[in-house]
């Protein structure tokens, strides 16, 4: 169908060059709270953006109706709009001569998923929790989409993404905790294990110690670390931010900024789902070592900024109309010991299960604020002893990552805006907490 629609668009278009992005996706999500399903949805959507490029002018339009009449009206209107645009010397020709489809071998376990199986998972999780007088809330979701990028210059690239997630919050009179599974296959998904892990965590909440805001040595679970480090990826490694001097990389590129324990890759080919071999400008995507043993040597770039800065194009152009670039499937290398072993070797630290509502105060120092949630536990002499109240942190990510003491060998896939992040647990010394709550 996409081929036929694209053919129509290209035949009708009077512009020198034309491209389409065709999105076809299904997203389904079962939501539960207070021990029952409260919301259950599925949305199917198809939409197409058409972009024309002519005499260094460009304009784009998005439509969701693909009748002959609508397509003709859209193409005619877009061409009219194009005539009123201003010339922009930064615009580059559309990609040409490629026919590439990424891997779309969706696992059987994922293919079988539907609303009935999602409801069964929810029922089972709640049964395990309710037996222990624990109430549950959460989601069970599945999504699948593909994006086809075609140009009037014989270029065609299809990218596939599918994801499953189960998130479970468990609450009783002592406290609340949360566990999650995210992945592209259900082969390693074990609902009993997830629910029982919640119950085990709640057992640590029977005893609660009050702590005040201060600096503490902390251990972030992979999920908590992922929530913190996403701000590094959003604000730091793009060639655009480097050029505009709005990132620490503008002042410290090539220097050792972080602990020598930290190595980070941008790995677009990392996962079976959402592996991206060509970016949305048609450039091949590359694996880039963003941080090498604490040294920040490399940027990610797109066609425009690679030319402007005379650096390699790493294929991170994700939007053809905003000149911006982002990491894809970032991976943080793990250490040699498991999270459990790191806990066992810690004399005095806090284990933090999740973070909440982070926001950036200063993009250069990457100072962020946010809250802990769903479990803060005291570790004393290698053992989790009690839970504590929640804390607000206000800390520079640059400082935190230079204070890394250890990274875990076990890593987790955590959702990232395209694909996943692969993240270990981390132990950081002297992390700054700026205020405390009563709960």
């Amino acid at each position, binding site marked *: 169908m996409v081929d036929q629609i694209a053919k129509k668009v290209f035949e009708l278009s009077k512009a020198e060059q034309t491209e389409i992005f065709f999105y076809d996706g299904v997203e389904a999500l079962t939501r539960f709270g207070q021990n029952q399903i409260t919301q259950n*949805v599925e949305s199917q959507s198809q939409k197409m953006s058409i972009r024309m490029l002519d005499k260094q002018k460009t304009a784009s339009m998005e439509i969701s109706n693909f009748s002959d009449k609508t397509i003709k009206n859209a193409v005619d209107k877009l061409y009219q709009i194009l005539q009123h645009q*201003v010339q922009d010397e930064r615009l580059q020709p559309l990609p040409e001569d490629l026919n590439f489809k990424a891997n779309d071998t969706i696992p059987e376990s994922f293919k079988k998923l539907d609303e009935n199986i999602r409801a069964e998972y929810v029922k089972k999780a709640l049964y395990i929790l309710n037996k222990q007088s624990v109430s549950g809330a959460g*989601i069970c979701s599945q999504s699948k989409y593909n994006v086809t990028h075609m140009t009037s210059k014989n270029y065609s690239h299809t990218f596939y993404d599918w994801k499953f997630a189960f998130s479970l919050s468990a609450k009783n009179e002592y406290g609340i905790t949360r566990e999650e599974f995210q992945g592209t296959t259900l082969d390693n998904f074990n609902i009993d294990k997830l629910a029982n892990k919640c119950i085990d965590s709640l057992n640590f909440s029977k005893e609660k110690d009050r702590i005040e*805001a201060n600096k503490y040595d902390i251990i972030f679970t992979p999920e908590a670390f992922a929530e913190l480090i996403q701000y590094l990826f959003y604000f730091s490694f793009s060639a655009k931010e480097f050029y*505009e001097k709005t990132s620490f990389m503008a002042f410290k590129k090539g220097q050792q900024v972080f602990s020598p324990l930290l190595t980070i890759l941008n790995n677009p080919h990392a996962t079976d789902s959402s592996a991206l071999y060509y970016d949305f400008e048609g450039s091949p995507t590359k694996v880039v070592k963003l941080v090498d043993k604490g040294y920040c040597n490399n940027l990610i770039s797109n066609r425009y900024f690679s030319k402007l800065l005379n650096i390699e194009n790493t294929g991170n152009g994700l939007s053809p109309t905003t000149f911006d670039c982002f990491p894809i499937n970032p991976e943080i290398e793990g250490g040699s010991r498991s999270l459990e072993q790191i806990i066992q070797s810690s004399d005095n630290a806090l284990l933090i299960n999740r973070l909440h509502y982070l926001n950036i105060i200063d993009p*250069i120092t990457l100072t962020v604020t946010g809250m802990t949630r769903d479990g803060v536990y005291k570790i004393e002499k290698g053992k989790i002893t009690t839970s504590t109240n929640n804390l607000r942190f206000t800390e520079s990510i640059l400082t935190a990552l230079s204070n890394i003491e250890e990274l875990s060998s076990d890593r987790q896939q955590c959702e990232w805006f395209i694909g996943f992040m692969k993240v270990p647990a981390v132990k950081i010394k002297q992390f700054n907490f700026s*205020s405390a709550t009563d709960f």
Partner: protein
Amino acid sequence: MFDFCDKVLNYAELLGASYADIRIIIRDIESLYTKNGKLENYSINNIEGFGVRVICDNGWGFASSSNLDSSQIEKTVRKAVSIAKASSKVRKEPIILSKDPPFQDRWASTYLIDPFTVPFDNKLQTLLEIDEILRNEPSVKIAEGYMEFRREHKYFASSENARILQTTIVSGAGYSATAVGNEDVQTRSYPMSFGGQYMQMGWELVESLKLKENAQRVASEAAALLNAKEPEPKVRDLIIGGEQLSLQIHESCGHPSELDRVLGYEENYAGSSFITVDKYRNLHYGSHKVNIVADSTLPNGLGTFGYDDDGVRAQRFFVVKNGLYQNYLTNRELAYTINEDRSRGCSRADNFSSVPIIRMINLSLLPGDDKFEDIIAATEDGLYVDGIKTWSIDQMRLNFQFTCQIGYLIKNGKMIEMVKNPTYQGITPNFWQSCDMIASEEYWKPWGVINCGKGQPAQVMMMTHGAAPARFKNVMTGIVRH
């Protein structure tokens, strides 16, 4: 379109739905984004589709399609019913909808000049002229301008015989100047952060905003912030300008008042609320000066409509009256849980593909009696802050910390020094109880919010918060570093 709706509702009934509704949305969006003298992005979106919501065997189901062809009806309704039946397998409480009457009506927002009839060249020229003024300031390295116009036709029909067509026009415009230097980045925006001011108005909104007139001041402030200090952390009196106060209302009053949060339906994601049911109408939320009103009839508000997405008529009610907590934001599904037989009309979805959930409508702090100048003059040791920069609040909506774009230290009734990254933190009820002065109606303005996220799958909603500057006593200000 209502023929299409009838087919959907009839088919849902045939498949056993005890309740069904459908929303068809046809939406056009035109947006311009300029940056450093260039048109960075221009796009037009013409999106349409329908979403069907059913109750079947005491379970909810929702399915949607972006294809308005009648061939999609059977597939989409079947899916919604199948989902409802799956939901019913894990349902303990009965679904009891409030007894709000169904309406057959048309409603449209008001405007003077249809923004879609204004030539593209006029829009671009306005933004590029501002861009030039902003970049006349040497340390402003990034000048950005925004305009967006939306037109939406929404058809709503239910198995209870509601038939409602609503047409809305929204316009928005604004800009920001980012100064870069001294290994620092400072931004000032006008009229608001994150894309500017948005209202249910036409092109006349853009003409009324005095965009060009303020550009030089905004650029100069961004540049001056590069040389400003951060305020030292200490307890002071805090005066919050209207824009920032709109965010304070949104985060610390709006979200904790959503009944679905209160009941634990958002526990796993956005969190819950400190205004638990036992505190309902039994909580000193703020000082007696604090009056907060929810109002989906507010002229030109982004949360203004004739009917919500349950088909419930728009209304105005107190959330906080003389400091006492009064009312939650509710929908037809949950009103009964607090023994109310009518919804307060806060059911909203951001698109045809999203299920309606409880969302804020327009929520405003009513003005007080004080002149802004008198509030400053009455402050011995204080900090004035405005311009939204960063916000964060815990999952119960108690512990918050906000950083603004600009601040001024106040000594003995005078603003004496500009400060950067002015930050304040507090605990919600303590904070609102410390409110002792609110500026009068002449300082009160509506502030449009276009980026309110909630729900899973994520939905982004628009609403307006009216506010005038107000003073809060003894607030912890500055960034606390141990």
